[in-house]
C-alpha cells in the first residue's frame, strides 16, 4: 500500500497527528473450524480516526469487529491497543478483568440491535448510569445528573429518564445505547451497523448525532456497516471486505469516488445509485 512508504520515509511528517497509534492490528485471522471468518487483516488506527469497514453480509466485518474488541479470539495475528491507563497492551493477552474494565472506560461497543446493548428491565437513567457505577460512582444525585445530561445530548426527552427502554422506539433505544456507551468518555468505540434496522428518517437523525458526537469528543472508532452512505458520513477511512479479506482501503472519499477493486466498483455502482 502506498501510504506505508510515505510514512516510512518520514515518520515525523505531521507531528500533530503522528502520535502512537491507538490500535495496531497485524495479520488478524479467524477461522470457525474450516470456515473462514476473516484473514490477513492489518491496519493502524490513530487517535481521532474513524475507520469504516464495509462489505456485504458474510464478508467478515462482524467477525473482524469481534476480534478487535476482544470478544472473539483470533486464530492468527494480534491486536495491540495503546491504553491510556496501562500503555501498550496485547488485547487478547489481557486478563479478562482488564478487558472488561477497558470496555467500561476507554472503549465502547455499540451493537446493531439496541436490545443487545441495553438493560431493558431498568430505567434509561440506570442504563446510562451503569458504566459510571461500574467504575465507582457512588453518588446517586451525580449519577442521575450525568444521565440527564446524556439523555439531552442524544436528544431524548429528559422526562423519559425513569422510563424503561422497552417502551422506547427503535431510534430512541439506539440513541440511549449510544449515551450508555459514551457516558464514561471512551477513546475508542466499536460500532456494528449502528443504523441498521432503523427507518431511513430515523437513520438520518442518528447519523447526524453520531457524526457530531464523534467529532466533538474526538473519538476514534471502527464502524462496521454495509451502508456506503453511512460510511461516507462517519468514516475518515474505509476498508472494503469481501470473503473475509480486505480488498481495498483508503480515504473514504477515495474509495467511494475512485474505487479500484472490481468488488468495490460493483458495490459503489450498485448502492449509490439507489
Amino acid at each position, binding site marked *: 500500500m*502506498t501510504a506505508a512508504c510515505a*510514512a516510512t520515509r518520514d515518520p515525523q511528517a505531521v507531528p500533530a497527528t503522528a502520535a502512537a497509534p491507538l490500535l495496531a492490528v497485524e495479520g488478524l485471522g479467524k477461522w470457525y473450524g474450516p470456515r473462514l471468518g476473516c484473514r490477513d487483516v492489518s491496519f493502524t488506527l*490513530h487517535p481521532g480516526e474513524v475507520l469504516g469497514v464495509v462489505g456485504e453480509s458474510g464478508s467478515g466485518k462482524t467477525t473482524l469487529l469481534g476480534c478487535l474488541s476482544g470478544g472473539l479470539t483470533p486464530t492468527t495475528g494480534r491486536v495491540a491497543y495503546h491504553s491510556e491507563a496501562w500503555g501498550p497492551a496485547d488485547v487478547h493477552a489481557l486478563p479478562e478483568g482488564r478487558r472488561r474494565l477497558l470496555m467500561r472506560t476507554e472503549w465502547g461497543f455499540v451493537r446493531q440491535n439496541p436490545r443487545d446493548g441495553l438493560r431493558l428491565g431498568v430505567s434509561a437513567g440506570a442504563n446510562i448510569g451503569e458504566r459510571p457505577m461500574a467504575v465507582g460512582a457512588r453518588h446517586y444525585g451525580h449519577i442521575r445528573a450525568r444521565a440527564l445530561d446524556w439523555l439531552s445530548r442524544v436528544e431524548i426527552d429528559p422526562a423519559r429518564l425513569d422510563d424503561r427502554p422497552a417502551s422506547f422506539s427503535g431510534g430512541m433505544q439506539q440513541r440511549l445505547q449510544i449515551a450508555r456507551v459514551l457516558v464514561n468518555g471512551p477513546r475508542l468505540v466499536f460500532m456494528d451497523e449502528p443504523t441498521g434496522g432503523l427507518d431511513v428518517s430515523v437513520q438520518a437523525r442518528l447519523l447526524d448525532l453520531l457524526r457530531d458526537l464523534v467529532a466533538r469528543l474526538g473519538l476514534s472508532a471502527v464502524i462496521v456497516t454495509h451502508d456506503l452512505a453511512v460510511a461516507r458520513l462517519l468514516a475518515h477511512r474505509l476498508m472494503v471486505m469481501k470473503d473475509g479479506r480486505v480488498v481495498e482501503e*483508503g480515504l473514504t472519499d*477515495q474509495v467511494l469516488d*475512485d474505487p479500484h477493486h472490481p468488488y468495490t466498483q460493483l458495490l459503489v455502482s450498485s448502492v449509490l445509485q439507489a
Partner: protein
Amino acid sequence: MTHDPTPAAARPMIRAEGLGKTFVLHTQGGARIPVFEGLDLTVHAGECIGLHGPSGTGKSTLLRALYANYRLDTGHVWVRHGPDWVDMATAPARVVLDVRRRTVGHVSQFLRVIPRVPALDVVAEPLRLRGASEAEARARAGALLTRLNIPERLWSLAPATFSGGEQQRVNVARGFVADVPILLLDEPTASLDNDNRDVVLALITEAKQAGAAVVGIFHDAAVRAAVCDRLFTLTPRTEAA
C-alpha cells in the same frame, strides 16, 4: 518533506510531478480509460492557474487528484503543509486529512448535502475543524453567507431543499471560510448569476492577494480572464493503453 527557504512571494505551494491516471472499469468489461500521463504542474503562492482543455481531458480528474480524492497511478503531488512538504499521493490517510483541514480547500462542483445539518454549520465546519471557537466559526460563516446573498432565514435550514445556485454558494462559502493557503475550485461560478459570480471572483482575488495558491476549472472565459494568471492546458488522449 524538507524545509524550503524560498521567499514567501515566489514560494511554490504545489509541485505535481509525473502524474499519471487511468481508470479501469471492472464493471464494464475491464475497460481502460487513460486520462493523463507524465503530467507536471507547479503552483506558487498568490497565483491562480486555470485548468484548460476540452471536456474529457481530465481537468476535474487532475483537480481531484491534487486533493487526493482520486488516486494516481504514478507521480507525486507535493503540497507545502506548514513547514513540511507532504506527498498527497502517498501520505497516510490521517496526514492527507490534516492537509485538507489546514492547507488545502476544495470547492467541488456540487454540494454534498448532509441530512439535518443547517447551512450555517455546513459552512462553519471547516473552521471548527481547524480549532476555531463555535462562536467565531459561526460568525465568519454568517458573514460569508451574507456576502454571497444567502438570506439569513435559510441559515438554519439544511441545504438539501435549496436551489442549485444556493447550494453552490453554500459550497463556495464552505471552501473560502477557512483562509487556507491552497484552494482547488471546480467550476465555482457555474450556476451563479452575475452578481454572485462577481462576489466569487472577488473572493478568489482576495485569496490570491492574501497569498493563496489557486487552481481552478472555470468554464466561463470571462471568469478565466478575470482571475487566472496562467492556464494549464490538458490535451485529449485518444489511444487506449
